[in-house]
């Protein structure tokens, strides 16, 4: 009898324990849900440290009950990985948006939500929002974060040694290159064509804006009023072709990290840059460096810069933490975030209207060009890369070939134009 009783008791106790543990687990789960956790999907794996140590803590000071996790893939794998996770329903709450069609595609497929009603969106100009809005400009689906600016970074010590001044026109640019080449100690231009995008982005888009007059030419291309076979584009390719003799040994097999190392080791004088290189050079180069804007064609010409809207943040339509995600985006639009982002990652420039002081002198120089020159974005990004063949891929291919000398500037222009005309109505005429 006694044993029976104790057995029943033990069983009862076991049941109680099991129930208790289930309840505890459920409570813990509910707890975790109330202290919401947001996960950010990003391709900026280089910036993980800044996000974890600066940006997220600053956000948590204001919103302590929203936890934020930064999860990044390598840039080249991001699109594929993100699409797979979105399809599988395992993507994070916040999605870092590529500019234009890649994100527009996500929005149209219902993966991103409209953020027109999120507070803070009014801090951005239409140009800033254009990369993440529908074609009619009515709906915005990602909160703009930053743009990148192209220009040339140069090694100040080499320039001082050879008594050179930063060039303002293409003629001066070539004079400088010739002097560096004649001296023979340094590679005049640090650039390679193996990765192809360097040629297209740091080459074609970097100097091209001065030839096709920024937004004017970019819009004319979209409307079909200009073609890639027109003079400005052929001239840009011609200029690129003329760089070949100034580039390093075997530049055809030189990749982007090689290019960066060539410059930071002090073996090259001029580096066609994206502003995102500035923080990397800050860490690696032990010499003084500075920047000059893309040289204009003729002295006295108005100058243009490629001030490319590059990165934004949107909300996964399937997110369980919609409110928290919107709170985070609102904070992203605040001057506080702009200040942190601009100074922790000099080279990424906030797009909000708020005035932000950039402390890094070289990065400040890049952003300073916004005052003297007209800003434009890369001409292949809006609408024109929607068809097959893909315009951006074609530009990478032909820019690299022009610099390799395997294609003439006129042929390159014709190939790009033919590809575009094969599917894009305004260019079919």
């Amino acid at each position, binding site marked *: 009898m006694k044993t029976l009783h104790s057995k029943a008791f033990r069983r009862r106790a076991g049941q109680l324990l099991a129930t208790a543990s289930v309840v505890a687990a459920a409570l813990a789960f509910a707890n975790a849900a109330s202290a919401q956790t947001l996960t950010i999907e990003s391709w900026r794996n280089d910036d993980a440290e800044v996000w974890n140590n600066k940006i997220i803590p600053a956000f948590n000071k204001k919103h302590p009950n929203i936890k934020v996790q930064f999860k990044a893939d390598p840039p080249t794998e991001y*699109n594929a990985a993100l699409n797979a996770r979105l399809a599988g329903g395992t993507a994070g709450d916040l999605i870092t948006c590529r500019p234009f069609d890649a994100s527009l*595609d996500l929005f149209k497929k219902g993966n991103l939500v409209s953020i027109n009603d999120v507070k803070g969106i009014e801090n951005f100009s239409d140009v800033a929002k254009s990369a993440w809005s529908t074609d009619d400009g009515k709906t915005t689906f990602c909160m703009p974060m930053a743009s990148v600016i192209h220009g040339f970074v140069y090694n100040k010590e080499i320039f001082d040694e050879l008594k050179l001044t930063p060039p303002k026109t293409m003629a001066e640019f070539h004079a400088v290159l010739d002097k560096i080449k004649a001296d023979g100690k340094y590679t005049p231009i640090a650039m390679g064509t193996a990765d*192809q995008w360097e040629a297209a982005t740091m080459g074609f888009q970097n100097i091209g804006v001065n030839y096709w007059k920024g937004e004017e030419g970019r819009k004319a291309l979209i409307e079909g009023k200009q073609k890639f076979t027109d003079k400005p584009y052929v001239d840009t390719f011609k200029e690129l072709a003329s760089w070949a003799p100034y580039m390093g040994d*075997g530049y*055809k097999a030189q990749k982007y990290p090689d290019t960066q190392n060539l410059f930071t080791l002090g073996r090259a004088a001029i580096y066609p840059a994206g502003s995102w290189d500035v923080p990397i050079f800050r860490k690696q180069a032990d010499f003084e460096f500075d920047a000059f804007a893309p040289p204009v064609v003729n002295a006295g010409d108005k100058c243009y810069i490629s001030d490319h809207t590059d990165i934004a943040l949107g909300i996964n339509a399937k997110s369980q933490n919609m409110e928290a995600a919107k709170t985070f985006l609102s904070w992203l639009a605040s001057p506080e975030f702009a200040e942190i982002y601009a100074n922790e990652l000099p080279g990424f420039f906030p797009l909000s209207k708020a005035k932000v002081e950039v402390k890094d002198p070289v990065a400040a120089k890049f952003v300073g060009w916004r005052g003297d020159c007209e800003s434009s974005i890369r001409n292949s990004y809006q609408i024109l890369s929607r068809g097959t063949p893909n315009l951006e891929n074609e530009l990478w*291919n032909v820019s*690299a070939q022009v610099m*390799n000398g395997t294609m003439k500037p006129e042929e390159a222009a014709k190939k790009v134009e033919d590809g575009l005309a094969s599917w894009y109505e305004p260019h079919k005429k």
Partner: protein
Amino acid sequence: MTDLTASSVQSTDVVPARSRFPIHIAVFLAPALAIYTLFSIYPLIDTIRLSLYAGDETGARSFVGLQNFETLLMDPNWSGQFWNALTNNLIFFAIHMVVQNGIGLGLAMLLSLPRLTGGSVYRTLIFLPTMLSVVIIGFIWQLILNPLWGIAPSLLKAVGLGGLFGPWLGQESTALLTVSLISVWQFVGIPMMLIYAALLNIPDDLLDAATVDGAGPFSVFWFVRLPLILPTLGVVSILTFVANFNAFDLIYAIKGALAGPNFSTDILGTFFYRTFFGFQLQVGSPTMGAAVATAMLIIILIGILIYLFGVQRRLQRHTF
């Protein structure tokens, strides 16, 4: 009494066993069949199904029949890339057949020399790259061949042949050959091992008999050993074929998905990757990607059928 029990046992045991369904066969087949169906057959069939659909910009899919294949083969924007990738893939395969399997055969012959010392050391060393990650292989070779700080240009200069060096990975004329040879370097251990094992299987009596009959080393190789390892060479060829037409990783690691310069290193794998997952501003198309994958499947199937009916049936396995 004992007789009776014995006969009754026999009758209850034997009769049902004949009529019963052989469950044990099903039980033994089930795990492999289930795993294969789930992870191999189902995805394969679903890929083929997906290739018959097209998606619009909202992501909704509709049945379009063979239209994707028509685009792939007829639309010059697609077919140009497809044929280019296929041609490059055939060159990639040809280089592997000649160089990788040729060297593999040679190494296996050397390893099977009776008086070789340290054979197992060589064997391990030569097989080692096969086990390394492709990313590491790509990284190492890019460093070796790097025109700025690579060891290849300095070595060539040291022996006075610096003029021979070129940016091999970056030139349209040499990039595919260079990448292929890197792949050969990595995988040469596999044909070597297979052929080596086949050579060991040849009984010494045959070789001795041939030698006694007056055959020199060359004749022994050509008339005795080679015919005896032909079935293995067949297996090696078909393995190379399948591996090469599914290759992707090394080229992706070295040249990226755009497989430059001017798509000179683009093979079916990288072409598929760009189509399916997209690239930079090119939005990926799962349905078109599935069509490319199905085309790859068909190409591999054709290759295997040619081998099965054209080659393997004529090969004779010798049992000793």
